[in-house]
């Protein structure tokens, strides 16, 4: 293997490149990214960038000197438009092809849009540095922000916008923000924090169209006929994997690139990060996880598999994410979507600190910690990794340290 081509120059792509170098790969690494910036980090976009605590320079994933030391053939501001699996080449938007011995696809996801309205002044999504700076500059005392979608992104932005003095409304189509993933009780608890801080939360409603005047947004019309006046609207209704450029390649791109437990999706091709749907033996199925840590973990695992393909080490990682809601830290180990039951295993939501366990089948498949000391949460990761029986955790809550 002489040349590795990585498409996507963000968390997963850079982790792959860094791990390849650390593990001694001396060949050529070409990294192709369509954004014009050096690789930067996204989680602070909805947190420190929106509140104004950080400027964009702090977002760099690695200092420029580290990148130089990695000796990458970095092609920024260029998108890949196709892959030819027979010739083993990637085609670039401005013409030209790049040959590969190994290809790593790390193209992430993009926001799902609502028809009509995007591109108008005042209508926002939040995925890139530009998105965050544009929204940041519009927030301020009394400015009216309507957030469509009460997921992690929508609720984090609500928290940041309230800290900037904006007047914030969340429109959630489900019964409770966040509930689809973390369950009703935890969802209700976090929603309660937002209500206490003055966020208006409307549930069971869908946004239908945007009202506009002189081209700019003035409000959002809901499916019950009501109109919410707005200076700005954030559409935070989920994401779509960036796999359009792989159409016709023969790769399985139904909800992201399907990979085995090593991140392999076809001979000579791996995928990592938000765009990848890895088989995870711990949960017995392929899951696509949009968490920052998974991007790094998968990048490291792909590098290892590229360099030592003869001794594969199937990864069964326990997914991890955190979210900051005002001063409350929420952390989770495991995989929560599709859980069949949840229960408070430690602490008490009424006191603002609790550890909630999630069951699917007979096992503990995930935990969520709200306001718990971070150190007390880590042992639960091992409990999930061991596939602890649900009956065991509900009878003797605290796992041995």
């Amino acid at each position: 293997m002489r040349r590795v081509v990585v498409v996507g120059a963000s968390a997963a792509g850079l982790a792959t490149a860094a791990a390849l170098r650390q593990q001694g790969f001396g060949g050529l690494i070409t990294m192709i990214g369509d954004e014009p910036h050096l690789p930067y980090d996204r989680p602070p976009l909805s947190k420190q960038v929106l509140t104004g605590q950080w400027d964009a320079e702090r977002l760099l994933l690695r200092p420029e000197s580290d990148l130089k030391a990695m000796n990458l053939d970095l092609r920024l501001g260029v998108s890949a438009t196709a892959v030819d699996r027979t010739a083993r080449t990637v085609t670039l938007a401005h013409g030209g092809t790049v040959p590969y011995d190994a290809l790593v696809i790390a193209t992430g996801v993009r926001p799902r849009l609502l028809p009509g309205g995007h591109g108008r002044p005042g209508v926002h999504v939040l995925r890139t540095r530009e998105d965050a700076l544009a929204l940041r500059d519009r927030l301020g005392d009394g400015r009216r922000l309507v957030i469509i979608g009460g997921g992690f992104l929508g609720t984090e932005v609500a928290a940041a916008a309230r800290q900037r003095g904006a007047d914030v409304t969340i429109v959630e189509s489900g019964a409770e923000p966040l509930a689809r993933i973390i369950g009703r009780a935890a969802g209700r608890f976090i929603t309660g924090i937002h209500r206490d801080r003055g966020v208006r939360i409307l549930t069971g409603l869908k946004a239908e169209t945007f009202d506009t005047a002189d081209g700019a947004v003035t409000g959002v019309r809901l499916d019950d006929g009501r109109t919410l006046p707005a200076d700005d609207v954030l559409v935070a209704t989920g994401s779509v994997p960036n796999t359009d450029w792989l159409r016709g390649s023969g790769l399985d791109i139904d909800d992201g690139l399907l990979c085995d437990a090593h991140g392999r999706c076809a001979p000579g091709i791996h995928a990592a990060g938000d765009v990848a749907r890895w088989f995870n033996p711990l949960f017995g199925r392929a899951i696509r996880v949009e968490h920052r840590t998974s991007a790094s973990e998968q990048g490291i695992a792909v590098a290892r598999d590229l360099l030592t393909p003869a001794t594969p080490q199937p990864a069964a990682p326990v997914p991890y994410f955190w979210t900051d809601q005002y001063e409350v830290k929420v952390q989770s180990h495991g995989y929560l979507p599709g859980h069949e039951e949840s229960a408070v295993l430690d602490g008490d939501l009424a006191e603002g600190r609790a550890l909630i366990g999630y069951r699917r089948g007979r096992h503990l498949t995930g935990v969520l910690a709200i306001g718990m000391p971070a150190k007390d949460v880590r042992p639960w990761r091992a409990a999930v990794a061991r596939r602890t029986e649900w009956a065991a955790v509900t009878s003797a809550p605290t796992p041995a340290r």
Partner: protein
Amino acid sequence: MKVHIDEHKCVASGQCVLVAPDVFDQRDEDGVAVLLDDSPTPDKAGQIQEAVVICPGAAIRLDRA
């Protein structure tokens, strides 16, 4: 070899402790990463480099000098 942690970037995930338990720990009160040893021996380089990559806050730096 010197290890640096940017406390403001640390998100208290504890991922560094999982890969390099002899080098990192978490503060009891807020989970922010702390160094058990800021000038570790070269045999720890591999673990620390993995911590640099795995850290979800991009908060760890390793100076080889």
